[in-house]
């Protein structure tokens, strides 16, 4: 398993340099004015930062209140028989619950979790992997089915939820394997 863990670690190290190089070189080959295109796209970065502020304030304050008042510890104690069984720190529960419901909400939860526990703690890493590997399942289903007026969704919801749970369990497993 250590060979696999090394491979996953290597992937993290080479991913960004490789993709950066690939995108820029491919762009140049296809005669894109890479510098100008980059600057044009990068302008949107500031808007993204400003746009998410209200969502972050709402969610970080709510989770902050929940944690500072002692409710998080209480919830963790209550659920510890289940979460201990799968090796999942109860502090990552808010992330697991929020991820399929709301993208901006989950971003707020991630921010609060990495601030409270540290981005490089086991909890911070696990919440990060859950955020990165999940998707706002309920939102996607509602928008996509809604767009073609499909109301009998058959097995889509069940399969979506099962895939989400698999993603959470996989996050717990891989983070414990590498950093546990």
């Amino acid at each position, binding site marked *: 398993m250590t060979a696999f863990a090394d491979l996953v670690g290597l992937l993290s190290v080479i991913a960004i340099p490789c993709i950066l190089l690939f995108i820029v070189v491919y762009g140049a080959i296809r005669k894109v004015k890479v510098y100008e295109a980059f600057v044009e796209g990068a302008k949107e*970065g500031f808007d993204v930062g400003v746009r998410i502020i209200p969502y972050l304030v709402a969610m970080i304050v709510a989770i902050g209140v*929940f944690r500072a008042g002692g409710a998080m510890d209480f919830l963790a104690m209550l659920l510890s028989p289940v979460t201990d069984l799968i090796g999942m720190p109860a502090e990552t529960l808010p992330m697991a619950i929020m991820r399929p419901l709301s993208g901006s909400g989950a971003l707020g939860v991630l921010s609060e979790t990495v601030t409270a526990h540290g981005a490089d703690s086991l909890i911070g890493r696990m919440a*990060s992997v859950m*955020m*990165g590997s999940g998707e706002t399942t309920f939102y996607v*289903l509602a928008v996509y089915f809604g767009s*073609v007026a499909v109301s009998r969704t058959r097995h889509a919801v069940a399969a*979506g939820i099962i895939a989400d749970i698999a993603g959470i369990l996989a996050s717990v497993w891989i983070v414990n394997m590498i950093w546990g």
Partner: protein
Amino acid sequence: MLNYIWLALLLIGILTAAGSDFFGADPGYPALSRVTNEGVVESARVAVTLAIGLIGIMSLWLGLMKIAEQSGLIRVIARWVRPVMTRLFPDVPAEHPAMGAMIMNISANMLGLANAATPLGLKAMEELNKLNRKAGTATDAMCTFLVINTSNVQIIPATVIAIRASAGSASPAEIIGPVIVATTISTIVGIATVRLLSRLRVYRRQLEEGVGA
């Protein structure tokens, strides 16, 4: 839904603090002061600091994505995705516009081009609906497409990296490998589940004419 969760977090948080103060948990530093200082004031400040701190990485990433967009990189990814897709959607003819739209949507998702992915996804649903013989009911192809979509196949989780960097991580990108592993597992489980469930009689019957939900 989010309205209830938000309300519940605040309500339970404050009531728990008040309760533990009432039963005298720590008279030196009451839980309600902790709620005020760390829960409310400090959290609101941190929210803005984090948001400002991630602008740098978001700008870098959005800049790269603009190059990817203009160079038509989506079409390169689409070429890799096509053989897998035609096998996953036996009901959709390979030349049908639905196939093209689905391939483009999933390629855009892999690159993390959310703004490009959504219109392509809606186009794919519209085309899939033309192959639907029972309006208002999801086809097998629709269910499979959406499960692939919701199990997220993004290669670089840029926002997560930006938040981690903003929170002072020594190695913000170290989660890329684990994310790829976890997302691959959830996609495989999702596809397997959607296939198995589509064979169940309950779901088969809903596709037949004249049978309601």
